[in-house]
């Protein structure tokens, strides 16, 4: 395969490219889904191919194909050069990638049990057992249990001398129960919203979640939600978010606005831009002093954990917010150079047929000092919410509205009645500046978001978000009506 890759790089240079990189990717997935005791899906998928990205006269071109032959490599490399020439017809400043990248080496996701090596029957048995446990609860309309496994082998090389090879393994899955009564439809999921927690690692992760052991609780909560009191409407109170919901809050209101390509307008036509414009760097109180946010691609289990990004930049950790102050972006080589910084390795492509674009790696809220019980006891009046049901945010990442599967009233420092149809809304910097307490490392979990959409043509990224429950003051609650 290396020969094929070098052939593309040589040809690109001989056709006038001042820079080129090549990725050969083989991606295997296995999905099992059980619904109401019946196997709804048992699927194995494989896709492989090569993508060639070239820079000609300071403008980009990219071509890709599933055929890994010399003839096809020559064809797509020539196509990429032709496309770059076309880009040059409507171009501005020439692209500057900054310092050369010459990374070498190999990386493999650490794991104990390779999920692809296990018999299908073993994996199915876990899901069936969870389904059976959910079925013991009266009043559940639909039960669902699933697992989703990924093994991706990727080779990367560029004309600057980089050559890396890595194998990333992901294990995901979860359960969900839905209850229906009258006009009410309620769901509960575990371990994560939409019945899908996902991590880099092996089958041991899924076993640690104990889906069967949590199944009856999840089903019972779905049924109980049908008759729970509705979330109060249009009140302002203290809000404690559970880790799973907070992970998505971090993703949407911290991760996306710190993507430097959004700031520079590259995503304006689709996902939008960002309120975190460059004059705010090192100069803007994004959150309260307890808020520390980090981008990393090295923490165990994170869906953004790897050896190198898709420009060959080594995995690393970099601050985004320190003690509330906005200090860093998610960057590519091109955008970092424009800002006068170095890339922190956030260029990721969803497959061989897509260009790398700036994506979240693991964007995490660092743990604080509180025990959850103490935090609740310290809250006179408020609402606890967890597990996302609905998420929406504006194109600059200011105004958001989230709904959660479940909530609980907090009165005089105690968790009280269950609440259904919980929603809250806010403006990103106001919200994060109202954060006054974050739970400690004992409560901190690396959550997975395997469905982050961005780019045209569309790409789906898998991102990690570490979070522990946290409290926010004066939040507007209940906007369903």
């Amino acid at each position, binding site marked *: 395969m290396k020969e094929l890759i070098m052939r593309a790089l040589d040809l690109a240079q001989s056709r006038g490219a001042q820079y080129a990189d090549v990725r050969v990717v083989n991606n295997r997935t296995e999905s099992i*889904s059980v*619904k109401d005791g*019946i*196997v*709804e899906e*048992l*699927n*194995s*998928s*494989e*896709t*492989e191919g090569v993508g060639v990205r070239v820079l000609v006269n300071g*403008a*980009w*071109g*990219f*071509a*890709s*194909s599933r*055929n890994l032959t010399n003839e096809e490599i020559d064809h*797509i490399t020539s*196509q990429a050069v032709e*496309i*770059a*020439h*076309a*880009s040059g017809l*409507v*171009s*501005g400043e020439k692209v500057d990638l900054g310092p050369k990248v010459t990374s070498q080496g190999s990386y493999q996701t650490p794991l104990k049990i390779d999920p692809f090596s296990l*018999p*299908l029957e073993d994996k*199915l048995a876990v899901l069936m057992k969870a389904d059976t446990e959910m079925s013991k609860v009266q009043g559940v*309309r*639909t039960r669902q249990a699933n697992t989703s496994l990924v093994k991706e082998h990727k080779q990367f090389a560029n004309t600057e001398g980089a050559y890396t090879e890595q194998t990333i393994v992901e294990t995901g899955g979860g359960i969900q129960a*839905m209850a*229906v009564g009258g006009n*009410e*439809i309620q769901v509960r999921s575990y371990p994560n919203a939409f019945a899908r927690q996902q991590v880099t690692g092996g089958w041991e992760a899924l076993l640690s979640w104990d889906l069967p052991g949590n199944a009856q609780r999840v089903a019972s909560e779905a049924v109980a939600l049908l008759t729970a009191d509705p979330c109060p409407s249009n009140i302002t109170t203290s809000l404690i978010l559970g880790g799973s919901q907070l992970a998505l809050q971090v993703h949407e209101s911290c991760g996306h606005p710190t993507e430097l390509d959004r700031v520079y*307008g*590259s995503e*304006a*036509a*689709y996902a*939008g831009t960002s309120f975190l414009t460059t004059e705010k760097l090192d100069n803007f109180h994004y959150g309260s002093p307890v808020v520390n946010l980090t981008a990393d691609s090295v923490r165990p289990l994170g869906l953004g954990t790897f050896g190198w990004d898709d420009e060959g930049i080594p995995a690393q950790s970099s601050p985004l917010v320190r003690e509330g102050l906005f200090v860093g972006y998610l960057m590519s080589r091109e955008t970092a150079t424009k800002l006068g910084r170095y890339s922190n390795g956030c260029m990721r492509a969803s497959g061989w047929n897509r260009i790398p674009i700036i994506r979240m790696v693991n964007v995490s809220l660092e743990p604080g000092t509180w025990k959850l019980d103490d935090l609740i006891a310290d809250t006179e009046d408020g609402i606890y919410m967890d597990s996302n*049901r*609905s*998420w*929406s*945010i*504006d*194109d600059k990442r200011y*105004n958001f509205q989230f*709904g959660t599967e479940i909530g609980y009233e907090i009165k005089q420092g105690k968790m009280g009645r269950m609440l259904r149809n919980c929603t809250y*809304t806010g403006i990103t910097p106001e919200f994060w500046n109202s954060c006054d307490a974050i739970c400690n490392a004992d409560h901190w979990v690396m959550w997975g978001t395997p469905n982050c959409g961005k780019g*045209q*043509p569309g790409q789906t990224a898998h991102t990690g978000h570490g979070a522990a429950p946290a409290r926010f003051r004066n939040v*507007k609650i209940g*906007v*369903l009506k």
Partner: protein
Amino acid sequence: MIEEKEARKITDAILQRCKGNPAELTLMYYEASLTRFANNIIHQNVTERDAEVTLRYFIGKQIGTASTNRLDQAGLDELVEHAKSNAKASPEDPNYPGLPEPEAYQCVTAWDQPTADYTPEKRARAVGAVCQMAVEKGLNASGALSNGSSDLVVANTHGVFTYHRTTNADFQTVVMSDDSSGRAQESAWKVDDLAVEALGKDAIETAVRGHNPIKIDPGEYTVVLEHYATDDIVSSLNFYGMGAQALQEGRSWMNDRIGQQLMSIMVSIWDDGLDVRGTPLPFDFEGVPKQRVDIVKQGVVMGPVYDRYSGAKMGKPSTGHATPINFRGFGPLALNLFMAPGDATIEEMIASTKKGLYINRFHYTRLVHPHDCIITGMTRDGVFLIEDGQVTSPVKNLRYTMPYVKALANVEAVGKAAHLLVGEFGGISTSVPALKINGWNFTGSTV
């Protein structure tokens, strides 16, 4: 790309590997190119060539699936082995109705050679013209122009063999100033049907009119919606309830409402895979011919679309709306939606509005609650205050939380012209008009 004769050879070679076991496959070849621009320059410019075969293998009612884009002998051998192993491991599905038998389907033309052959240079020159217009107005244009072609084959061991070749094209642009933006989009299966420059002018005009927006209080307003916003309403109602599986699971806005007058008499929505004004596809991913299905007729809920699985559960025949094998868990979906146009122009809708908002599009819309299909989202790329029948001022973006069922019950006027838009998920198309709706519920505003 692959000709029908060659496709038959490949499908035969795969089905023969199943050695007498029932099996069903989809085979797709496609090429897709896209030129993306931002800040008035091309910054991303890509092309891809791929193929994929997906196989469902049956041992009685045990079902296993596998897919690959490796179409060499070894790749096909592995495909069949994976699907067979998955079937062996899977318990029986007692509800599986079996494979469909061959049925005649109506071929429909959706192929345009100039679209398949459209070059990167042509795309660059087309978007360059829009960028130039934006530069001349001191504005910032971004967007994408794409073209592609695909061949779809569905075949099974009962003799089904269906083949459809199609092209597609799409242009969309957002034009921004420091405090305003405008957007326009059009989809077609003939690239020459895209009025790229005119769309660019529309977006520029909206951005120019949007300078110095005012902040208004949230609350209930009459809204005049461009067809981009209507597309969001129809698409959301599709995702959250037009398929039979959603009804069976009790999570559709249609539940317990079939036959009822739920929406305005001016609202009619149907699905038609054979209408060349949409993006035609004459059969579904089980090889079943597509039928035209009335979903809402003059405000009355008529019923959902079916695939064979959901249909068998409810004693109904398939309407030809099975989704791709890998997405079968979603259940059947309408892929070629139409909403009946009315007799009003946008200008007439505005002129007849005492106080309201004229809205170009919605952004980041998500389901808050399935009953009534309650959706929250933001306005984007053009919101204007209407007072006494006149547009008086641009307005800062607003958040709404609105039951889309109620929205279509509150329709007061329907636009004369329907426009085709193809969504990013699964190539689902809608052909929809502008709407005037009373009582739209805005719940917040942004910075």
